[in-house]
C-alpha cells in the first residue's frame, strides 16, 4: 500500500483525536458491565434496608411501622382489598418467598408474617418500563416517583415482580382522615409506593418505619448505606445469613431479610 505524507498525517491526527475522546470513556464502559452476579461498587451512598423477621415477630400482630409510614405519607385507608393502597405491609412468608417454601417446610414458617415493601432494586423493571421517567432511580439508589409526571398507565405495576405498587383508582384526598401537612397526598390516576422516606433522608432523618421500630423497641428494621463498609447495615449483612426476594430475576433488591 502506498500513501503520501499528507494522507498519513491526516489519518494519524484523526486517530489521536479519536483515542483521546475514548480514553476517559473506556474504563466507564468496562466498569458498567460489572462482575457476573455482583453489584457494581459505586461511589456515594447506596441506601438499603434490613428486615429482621425474627425480631419483627416477637411483638406479634404489631403494625407500628406500617402505621407510621402510612400516617406520615397520607396514605388513605381503603378497606376494599381490590383498591387498597399500601406502601408497607405484612405478607405470609410463602407469598413473599414463593421459591423458598415446599410441602415439608418447617412448622410456622409458611404463614409467618413478613414485612414487604418496594425493594428499591438495583435493576428496577418498573423504571425500565416507565414511558415518561415518572419513576426513576436516584444516585443514592432510591426508586422515586414523580407524581407530577405520572400518566397513570400502570405499566410499572405490571412490571414489578413484588407487587409493591398501588394505584389511585379514585381521589384519595378525602379518604385521608388525618392529613400530615408536611407531605402531600396523591391525586386519582397516579401510582404510588414506598419512597424510602426520601423527604426525611433529605433532612438527615431515618425512614418513618425504622424510627417506629426503634420507638416500639423491636428494632426489626435497620437502614443504612450499603456502600459504607463500616455502617451497621453493611456489617450485619456480612455477618448474618440474609436473603432477598426473587433473586433469580436479576433485579438486585436492596431490602434484605434476616430469617
Amino acid at each position, binding site marked *: 500500500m502506498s500513501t503520501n505524507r499528507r494522507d498519513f498525517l491526516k489519518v494519524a491526527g484523526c486517530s489521536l483525536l479519536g483515542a483521546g475522546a475514548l480514553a476517559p470513556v473506556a474504563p466507564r464502559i468496562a466498569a458498567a458491565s460489572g462482575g457476573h452476579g455482583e453489584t457494581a461498587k459505586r461511589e456515594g451512598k447506596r441506601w438499603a434496608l434490613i428486615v429482621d423477621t425474627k425480631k419483627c415477630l416477637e411483638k406479634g400482630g404489631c403494625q407500628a411501622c406500617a402505621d407510621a409510614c402510612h400516617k406520615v405519607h397520607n396514605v388513605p385507608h381503603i378497606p376494599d382489598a381490590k*383498591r387498597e393502597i399500601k406502601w408497607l405491609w405484612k405478607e405470609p412468608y410463602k407469598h413473599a418467598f414463593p421459591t423458598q417454601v415446599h410441602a415439608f417446610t418447617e412448622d410456622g414458617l409458611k404463614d409467618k408474617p413478613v414485612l414487604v415493601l418496594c425493594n428499591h432494586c438495583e435493576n428496577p*423493571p418498573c423504571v425500565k418500563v416507565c*414511558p*415518561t421517567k*415518572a419513576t426513576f432511580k436516584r444516585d443514592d439508589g432510591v426508586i422515586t416517583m414523580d407524581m407530577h409526571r405520572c400518566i*397513570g398507565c400502570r405499566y410499572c405495576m405490571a412490571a414489578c415482580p413484588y407487587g409493591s405498587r398501588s394505584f389511585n*383508582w379514585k381521589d384519595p384526598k378525602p379518604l385521608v382522615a388525618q392529613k400530615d401537612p408536611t407531605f402531600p397526598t396523591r391525586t386519582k390516576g397516579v401510582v404510588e409506593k414506598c419512597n424510602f422516606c426520601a423527604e426525611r433522608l433529605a433532612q438527615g432523618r431515618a425512614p418513618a418505619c425504622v424510627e417506629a421500630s426503634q420507638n416500639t423497641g423491636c428494632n426489626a428494621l435497620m437502614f443504612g448505606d450499603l456502600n459504607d463498609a463500616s455502617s451497621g447495615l453493611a456489617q450485619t449483612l456480612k455477618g448474618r445469613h440474609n436473603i432477598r426476594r426473587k433473586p433469580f430475576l436479576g433485579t438486585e433488591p436492596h431490602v434484605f431479610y434476616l430469617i
Partner: protein
Amino acid sequence: MFEHAFKGSLRYWALIFLFGGLFGVGFLTFLYQYMNGLQVTGMSRDVSWGLYIGQLTFFVGVAASAVMVVLPYYLHNFKAFGRMTVLGEFVAIPAVLMCMLFVLVDLGQPARMMNLFLHPTPNSMLFWDTVALFGYLGLNILITWFVFGAERKGVPAPRWIKFFIILSVPWAFSIHTVTAFLYAGLGARPFWMTAVLAPRFLASAFAAGPSLLILLALIVRKFTTFDPGKEAIQQLGRIATYAMAANIFLVGMELFTALYSGIPEHLHHFEYLYVGLGEADTLVPWMWTSAILGVAAMVMLFVPSIRRNETYLAWAAAMIFISLWIDKGLGMVVAGYVPSPLGAVTEYWPTLPEWMIVFGIWALGLLLITVFYKIVISVREQAEQA
C-alpha cells in the same frame, strides 16, 4: 372527495347515526370515568390492566393485518387484490385510531398524555409503541391520500409513494411486535414472558384482520355496487386459514411447554384460564368457547369446498374473529395477572362503564369505516359512470 360522506341513502345515514350515537354514549361514559377515576372499572391492585389494554392488543393486530392485502398486491403483483387493498387500508386507519383511544381511556391521567412525547424514554416499550402507532397512522393516511386521490383523478399515483407503501409492510409487523414486547420482556409475569408471544400475536393478527375484511367485503358487495372480487375474498380466506393454523400451533406450543414441564409458575396461569383456580373460574367458559370456535373455524376453512362457499366462509371468518377477540382481547391480558406475583388470585370482569366506553370506541371505528368506504364506493361509482 369528502362531500360523498354527506350524501347517502337512508341506510347509510341510519348507520352513521347509530354509530355516532353509540360513540356519544361512550364519550359521556368516559367523562364519567374521567371525573370519578378508574374506580368505575373492574380493575384492581392485582389486575391493573383489563379490557382496555386487551382491546389495544387485539386491534393493533387488526391494524397490522392491512399489510396482508398490501404485500401481495404491491410486492408480488397479485392483481386479484386490486380492489381489496383500499378496503384494507381504510380498516387500518380506524383500527390504529381505536388503539390510541384504548390507551387514552386507560390512562389514570389522560391530560398528561403529552408527557409521552415531552419525555421520550427509549428503554420503555410503551414509548416505542406510541412511536410505532403514530408512525403507522401517518403512513397509512399518507398512502391512502395519494393513492386513492390519484385514482380518483384518474392518474397514476406518484412514484415516490411506492417507498412508503413498501415501508408500511415492515412497519405493520413492527407495530404488533412492539406491542408483544410490552408483555414479553417482563420477568414479573411468567405467562407473558415467552419468546413465542410476538409470533403468536402476528399469527392471530393475520387471521383476525383478513377475517374482518372478508366480512366487510361481503357486506360491501351485498349492499353497494362495489365488488372486491370473489378471488380476492378467497385469497383472504386462504391467508386466514394458514394464519389461524399457525396461531393454533403456537398456542399448542405454549400449552406443551407449560403442561409437559409442569412448572407451577407457568402452569397456574393456563389453569386459571381453562379450568379455573379454586373458585376463580370466570374466564373458563370464555376460553373454551374461543378454543372451540377457533378450531372449528380452522377445520371448516381447511376443507376447500366449504371455504369456496361464501356463506360458510363468512361464518368461519366471524368465528375466527370472535375466537381471537376473546383470546387476545380479554384472556391474554387478564391471565398475566392471575395469580399475582404474591400468589393472590383476584378475578377481573369489566364493569358496565368499561363496556360502554369500549362499545363507544368500536362505534367510532365502525363509523369511520362506514364513512371511508362510502367515499371510496361513491368515487368508484362516479369513475365508472364517466
